[in-house]
């Protein structure tokens, strides 16, 4: 089977369906809404900044005035007024900049917080299969990388960009006031700027995009190697992993160097613009003074104005790229924010299930067309009944669990919970009734109590303790360094797989659904842990309808009913005893399992096995 397909592995990702990216108009609209809400703040911020920059521009004419006073030999006493004005301008400019930038930052941060909160809210309410089709990395990179990129832009690039742009515009206005011909002279430099930006942006966009990909690959390699360091050591893979790391890092460095070359080329091209503009202003000054149209002081002020523009022009043009990438990140975030939430997420109140019975009829499902995972599954579960799903890997147990929990929508057939079709309940309604404890063990970062409160936000510490007691986990929780307040998960106290599963069961107790599904919840805990968890699971299920994806047969043996799945179909159903007596597939599984526990001498068994 591996033969013909081998060697095409690198192209697999193309089948992924990434989450959408917003159009420019949608992105602007998403920015517009919070800006409109804070329009007073926005107007005030812009007003103060314009005033401050305008005041700052008085420096050059005041210095020009000093020159004129000197040329006219008006005596040192005449210098007092421009001197006082210069100092006043400096102080006023500083104060205005302080207020203006605070206000702009305030506006930016508030809008940013609004955007990211809306985005994460929506991301958490996306249908899971949509997220899975895009690959988990897509959403994660938007939640971390893109939000950080925008944050950086709001904190660093945006204020600088705005300040530089403002300075440029007002300086040009100032030049025009001195004499309109100075403005014309300065504009001679603009073609150089346009050409430079047009040379730079497309190249930079491509190099930076590739650099980000290389950086991601490097990060991934580090996580892969460091996360699996125990395995790396056990299999003596240090050399191989160090080599991959070196290669990934080298690739990222090479692209970074290309980026540096671009930036250096960008600024050195802009130097040409500086020269053209400066020479033009000086020649204009020369001609205008010669013609008697302006004073030497004015010509000086014009030259100083343009000299003062060197840095703002460089900054503004350079930041175009940052602003553009922030815009791209924003489009990726708005793209997710604008996605429809799961149906029913907002409506809230609909018909409520009458009881906790489940009726599955003619259920079909396929992840890939033509490869059915479930075909024609019929299953009825009474209120309060405990049913075990048994079958080999790939029989469709997990898929059935996910469909029932409302995580995927079935391709065909129906699921009725308490008399109401799940399509009418909506995914949220389904999840209010059904809780799924999945294979996935995830401990949420933060205090352990906060992890539990995700299942029931208003739970008191006493309720949390009661839930932990019910799943027999209170002892080890209290033994943690700070008990319920111990910080667990990423960056905190590390819990064992068994403990993490204990938490998952305690969350189930707190969520208190009428129907609970346990999917291989004990599989990863190791054999000793598995038994501890099995009894905890039984207690967590008390008083609920339970569907257990059973791995270990004793779990099935204690259930009210056993359903055997094979290749997506229900092949047997009945109580443990009935099925053992029926001598079918379940009986064979049971025999294989109990064989190993029979207290017989070993040799015969080994012979029988081969």
């Amino acid at each position, binding site marked *: 089977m591996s033969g013909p397909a081998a060697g095409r592995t690198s192209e697999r990702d193309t089948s992924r369906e990434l989450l959408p990216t917003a159009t420019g108009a949608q992105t602007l609209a998403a920015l517009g809404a919070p800006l409109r809400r804070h329009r007073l703040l926005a107007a005030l911020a812009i007003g103060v900044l314009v005033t401050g920059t305008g005041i700052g521009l008085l*420096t050059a004419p005041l210095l020009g005035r000093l020159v004129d006073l000197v040329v006219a030999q008006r005596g040192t006493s005449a210098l007092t007024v421009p001197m006082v004005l210069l100092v006043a301008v400096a102080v006023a400019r500083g*104060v205005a900049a302080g207020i203006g930038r605070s206000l702009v930052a305030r506006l930016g941060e508030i809008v940013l917080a609004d955007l990211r909160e809306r985005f994460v809210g929506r991301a958490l309410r996306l249908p899971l299969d949509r997220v899975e089709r895009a690959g988990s990395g897509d959403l994660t990179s938007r939640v971390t990388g893109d939000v950080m990129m925008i944050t950086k832009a709001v904190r660093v690039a945006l204020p600088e960009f705005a300040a530089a742009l403002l300075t440029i515009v007002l300086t040009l206005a100032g030049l025009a006031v001195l004499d309109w011909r100075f403005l014309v002279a300065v504009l001679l430099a603009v073609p150089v700027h346009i050409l430079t930006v047009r040379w730079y942006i497309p190249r930079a966009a491509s190099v930076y995009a590739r650099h980000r990909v290389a950086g991601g690959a490097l990060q991934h390699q580090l996580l892969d190697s460091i996360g699996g360091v125990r395995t790396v050591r056990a299999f003596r893979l240090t050399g191989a992993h160090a080599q991959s790391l070196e290669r990934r890092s080298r690739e990222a*460095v090479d692209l970074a160097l290309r980026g540096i070359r671009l930036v250096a080329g960008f600024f050195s091209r802009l130097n040409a613009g500086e020269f053209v503009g400066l020479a033009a202003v000086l020649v204009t000054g020369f001609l205008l003074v010669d013609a008697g149209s302006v004073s030497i002081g004015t010509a000086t002020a014009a030259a100083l104005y343009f000299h003062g523009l060197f840095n703002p022009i460089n900054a503004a043009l350079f930041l175009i790229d940052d602003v553009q990438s922030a815009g791209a990140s924003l489009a990726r975030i708005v793209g997710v924010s604008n996605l429809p939430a799961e149906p029913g997420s907002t409506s809230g109140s609909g018909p409520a299930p009458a009881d906790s019975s489940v009726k599955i009829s003619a259920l079909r499902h396929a992840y890939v067309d033509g490869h059915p995972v479930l075909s024609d599954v019929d299953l009825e579960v009474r209120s309060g009944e405990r049913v075990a799903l048994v079958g080999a890997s790939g029989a469709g147990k997990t898929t059935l669990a996910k469909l029932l929990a409302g995580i995927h929508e079935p391709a065909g057939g129906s699921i009725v919970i308490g008399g109401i079709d799940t399509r009418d309940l909506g995914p949220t309604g389904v999840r209010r009734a059904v809780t799924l404890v999945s294979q996935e063990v995830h401990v949420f970062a933060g205090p352990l109590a906060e992890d539990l409160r995700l299942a029931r936000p208003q739970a008191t510490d006493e309720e949390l303790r009661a839930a932990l007691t019910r799943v027999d986990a209170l002892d080890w929780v209290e033994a943690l360094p700070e008990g319920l307040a111990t910080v667990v998960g990423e960056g905190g106290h590390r819990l064992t797989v068994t403990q993490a599963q204990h938490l*998952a069961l305690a969350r189930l107790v707190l969520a208190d659904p009428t129907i609970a599904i346990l999917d291989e919840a004990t599989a990863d805990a190791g054999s000793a842990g598995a038994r501890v968890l099995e009894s905890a699971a039984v207690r967590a299920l008390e008083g609920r309808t339970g569907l257990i994806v059973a791995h270990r047969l004793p779990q099935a043996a204690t259930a009210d009913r056993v359903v055997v799945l094979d290749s997506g179909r229900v092949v047997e159903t009945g109580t443990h005893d009935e099925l053992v007596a029926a001598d079918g597939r379940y009986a064979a599984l049971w025999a294989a399992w109990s064989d190993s526990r029979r207290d017989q001498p070993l040799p015969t068994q080994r012979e029988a096995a081969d």
Partner: protein
Amino acid sequence: MSLGGPTEGGPTGARVLRNTIGGQRRRLAGASLLGMAHQACEALVPVVIGLIIDRAVTTGDASSLLSWLLVLAGLFLVLSTSYRTAALITDGAGEHAAHRLRIAIGARVLDPRGGADAGRLPGALTAIATGDATRVGAVAAAVPYAVSALTGLTVSAVMLLRVSVPLGLLVLLGVPPLLWLGHRISQPLEQRSEIEQERAAHASGVAADLVAGLRVLKGIGAETAAHSRYRRTSQDSLTAALRAARSRAWHDGAILALTGVFIAVIGLVGAHLAMSGAISVGELVAAVGLAQYLLGPFQLLTYVNGEFALGRASADRIADVLSSPPAVPTGEAVPTSPTAGRVRLRGLGHGALHNVDLDIAPGSTVGVVAKDPAAAHDLLLCLGRELDPDEGTVELDGVRLTELDPVSVRRAILVAHHDADLFEASLLDNVRAGTDADEADLAPALSAAAADDVARALPEGAATVLTERGRSLSGGQRQRVALARAIAADPPVLVVHDPTVAVDTVTESRIASRLRAVRDGRTTILVTSSPTLLAETDRVVMLDGGIVAAEGHHGELVAGCEAYRSAVLG
């Protein structure tokens, strides 16, 4: 050992910084020279502007205008070229330095002796190898910037001194207090920025964590609770950001005001001198232009100062990793070759193990049942020499593991943990990790672990690339691939921990019988309580209370030992 260093055996943060800069000294020296030329040219631009005003605009001399414009053009050419080259070398040096640090950190973490990963999460170590390495690299790159900024300051000071001694002195004496003031103003800012970044990173971490646990959240319908948790951290981050932004804004405002006043003072003094005829109008223009130009080098020095502050903290974190003591020291001895595979534990005590005596004959298959999971874990760590036991010894063919090199121990004894990680590579390459064998030779290992079935179920068979540490497979599939990898490595002693807990019963019994056949003649230790696997062993040892509590054939123990029955049959 480092001379006079505060810690033994490893570098300090200061030393990491020094080595990083020292490692790039050629590049940095070249870039500094070019940077000096660049800044000197930048400083000369206002001087030439002044000269043009003086010699051409004031006099109306067109030929003088032309020749001075040519000088200006030449100045820009040198300025542009030297800037471009300096930037290439400087930032290149930063990247190269970061690369070297990254490689060093990677090598230290992956080192067979271990120790660097203890108590640090993969995410934190990754952040050190990326973010912190980049930051320390940036410090190296900041050196030429500092040198060139100082050069710019010096050149303009000399120019000003040539124009007029009082003006030059004013700049020279005015700059240090100005720098000092700027530094004082930025101190609380640094603190607030740090809090701001910390909160932002925290909010980002919470969001990533919630998305990582999305399946769990969906399972318990906790989307709303999760969203409000994120909103709380986001608001915290907002508060910190606003505080930092306010102080950043006032800091910028104060710097603007300070430098503005400084330029005003220079302008005034210059004007007085020009009025009295001590300097020309053009020299006054040059002085004012120079004072304006000085803002650039000032800002550059502030930036360099900031880079150093950030870089120092990063260098400390890197030094911490690089100097973490190894979990096990290197031994000189190499195991006898060929390794027979006799494993002997004498009075072994570590963690949950108290006094374990155990003899495992070469080529035998032994089951170990540990009532306490912690005891199993500690036993595995001791057998793989991931740590050295507090008491007692582990011997391989009569040689203590502590005398052996950890790498050669692992060549002889392979410990396969039950939650072993797969890597982002094809299934086949994952299985091939511990061996040089050809694809054809892997078939027995794949079949013994029932991983051939896993391969068949994948879209591209054994060539399918597994993503994110094998997360694209189910728990049971992952275990089977990991077991195939351990079997394929074909070590003289194989220690497997719970290899089938996530595997279904039928497959488990198939694995149990095949495992025995494929390991025929080599020592195999199965740490498990699965009766299916234990039934296939020559002998079973039960650990209880940290000591060997029972020993015998699986069948005998099931028949005769109540504690064993309850441990294994539940």
